């Protein structure tokens, strides 16, 4: 009987049902598309974070005005200051240590490369760095870091060098100019800074034999360089235990107006809040305290602003979704209020015959639920299509539909239909059958 009542009440007044369903379709379509895009935004942000790699660059303070042309540092090697390798473990002791995902020191040495002891020397930059180095942290633990963490997008053909071996990885552009050099070949490198020993310690003038183990493409200046373990570059340049630049990969919170304020002008509570938020500015500040005499700069600012825009888009989408759902609920409320009024007589008769309020509410709710399922399903399809085209115009690639949203949308549709019917149903349950039966 219940099914029969619901069915009968469902097929009656199809125009109004279409209206309710249409309101639900529109609401759910908007919800589907905005949720799809919001998920896309989230994914993109996460991907952005993952591919972000290093986002901070630490350099000695004296070294802030580089003379770099085409990726080549034209200053004499010893002109700038150096940083000490032994301090690096302290990075894992700052307040936001867990947000420090990795760091990689770099030391550039101008050098010559020879394919054999007697062949013509080629001028090239040697870049000493870590691939996956164990760093001991003052708290007694150790931490593995290097290019593998901070520069995940650098692709190597062959393999990376071992940090403690006489191995090297050659930049793809440099490899192109040295046809004979392939993985497995041994080459010889010599420091090209004979006259600089006035200020620094003299680098070794001995050629070091290194085995090429891979060819790297970085889409960066390193494509023209030879990448070697840091220790070897230190030996070549005569700066043991030192490096010039440090790339740090830190998980940060997108900057906002608060993070851009001057910490020195904050009240103590504001300062605490700032210090305890993983803003780039607060993490930079904390890095500077453990590595004194350094400058910390943000790199890949583009990603940062993009992240900010995306999170704002996300907020906007939530507002639009809520507004659409609210409008749908209002439409449902308006139509079901009319329905309830129109069917007052029938409700009165059923009550006189002993129908309980919950039974009458159940009939209406079941009907609304059917409408919600229909409207939600259609709305999902429409919304998925909408997300495709919207995604295409917002991100350049269409946002793919997410089936996981389907039950969510149906649930939301049911809630909207339910909430929309609540007030009319309350009214129906307060109907007094006596006046209805006398025809008032």
């Amino acid at each position: 009987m219940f099914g029969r009542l619901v069915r009968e009440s469902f097929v009656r007044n199809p125009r109004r049902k279409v209206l309710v369903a249409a309101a639900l379709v529109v609401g759910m379509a908007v919800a589907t598309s905005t949720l799809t895009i919001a998920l896309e935004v989230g994914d993109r942000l996460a991907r952005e974070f993952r591919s972000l790699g290093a986002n901070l660059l630490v350099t000695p303070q004296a070294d802030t005005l580089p003379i770099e042309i085409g990726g080549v540092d034209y200053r004499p090697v010893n002109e700038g200051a150096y940083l000490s390798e032994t301090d690096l473990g302290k990075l894992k002791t700052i307040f936001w240590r867990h947000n420090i995902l990795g760091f990689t020191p770099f030391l550039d040495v101008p050098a010559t490369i020879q394919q054999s002891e007697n062949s013509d020397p080629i001028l090239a930059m040697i870049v000493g760095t870590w691939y996956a180095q164990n760093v001991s942290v003052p708290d007694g633990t150790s931490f593995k870091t290097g290019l593998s963490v901070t520069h995940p997008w650098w692709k190597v053909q062959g393999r990376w060098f071992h940090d403690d071996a006489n191995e090297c990885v050659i930049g793809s552009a440099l490899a192109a100019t040295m046809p004979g050099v392939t993985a497995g070949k041994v080459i010889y490198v010599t420091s090209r800074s004979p006259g600089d020993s006035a200020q620094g310690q003299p680098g070794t003038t001995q050629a070091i034999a290194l085995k090429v183990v891979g060819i790297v493409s970085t889409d960066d200046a390193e494509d023209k360089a030879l990448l070697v373990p840091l220790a070897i570059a230190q030996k070549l340049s005569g700066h043991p235990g030192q490096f010039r630049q440090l790339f740090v990969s830190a998980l940060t919170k997108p900057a906002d107006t608060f993070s851009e304020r001057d910490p020195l002008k904050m009240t103590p509570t504001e300062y605490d809040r700032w210090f305890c938020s993983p803003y780039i500015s607060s993490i930079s500040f904390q890095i500077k305290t453990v590595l004194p005499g350094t400058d910390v700069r943000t790199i890949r600012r583009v990603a940062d602003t993009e992240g900010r825009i995306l999170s704002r888009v996300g907020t906007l989408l939530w507002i639009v979704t809520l507004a659409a759902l609210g409008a749908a609920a209002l439409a449902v409320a308006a139509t079901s209020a009319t329905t309830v009024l129109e069917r007052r007589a029938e409700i009165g008769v059923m009550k006189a015959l002993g129908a309980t309020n919950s039974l009458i509410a159940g009939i209406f709710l079941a009907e609304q639920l059917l409408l919600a399922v229909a409207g939600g399903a259609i709305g999902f399809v429409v919304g998925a299509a909408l997300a495709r085209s919207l995604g295409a115009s917002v991100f350049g690639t269409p946002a793919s539909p997410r089936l996981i949203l389907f039950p969510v949308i149906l649930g939301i549709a049911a809630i909207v239909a339910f909430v929309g019917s609540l007030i009319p149903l309350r009214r129906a349950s307060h109907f007094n059958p006596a006046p209805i039966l006398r025809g008032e």
Partner: protein
Amino acid sequence: MATLVQVENLRKEFGNVCALAGVSFRVEAGEWIAIMGPSGSGKTTLINILGGLDMPTSGQAIVDAIDVGRLDESGLTRFRAQKIGFIFQQFHLVPYLTALENVMLAQYFHSSTDEKEAREALERVGLGDRVEHLPGKLSGGEQQRVAVARALINHPKLILADEPTGNLDEANEETVIQLFHELHREGHTILMVTHAPSIGRLADRRIAFAHGRLVEVPASLKTSL
């Protein structure tokens, strides 16, 4: 005979309109009572209170040992489903349900549906060949017979009929009154509001109202035929 209905000093006010101004009477089980009186004298108000559709302002209305005035809303709902069979002047069938379904609806609200029993009830009011008809396809008399079948289906203690023939032509009135005769003979307790003296005379007893009070039954109605 046991007393089924006991009304004690019953009052009902709507704002400052006094629909019932202290009414007392009893109805024994199995009696057929005609309630008579001019328009606005409180007949429907009394029926509604006895049927649990309205609450008295003061006084008591006891039906089958239940003080209707003390029931809460869900109690009233259960009371209506279990104890009362209503028959209205306007039939009040659910328009989109067939005759059979209208009868089964009352079963459903009472406990559970039983199609066979519902069919038998319709056969008994002479509508065995109309079970699948919608109310709109039935004549007034047929609709009222469906309503009678619906009122009887749950074996109510008390049948309350508010001008059941008020909307019927003479021929249909005759059929419906015939049904009431049969119900009475089977031992049902019936309270029936009517304006027609000819119908009032058929009942065991007549209760006359005027301005919300019981009055002396007019001499013209005293003798049953």
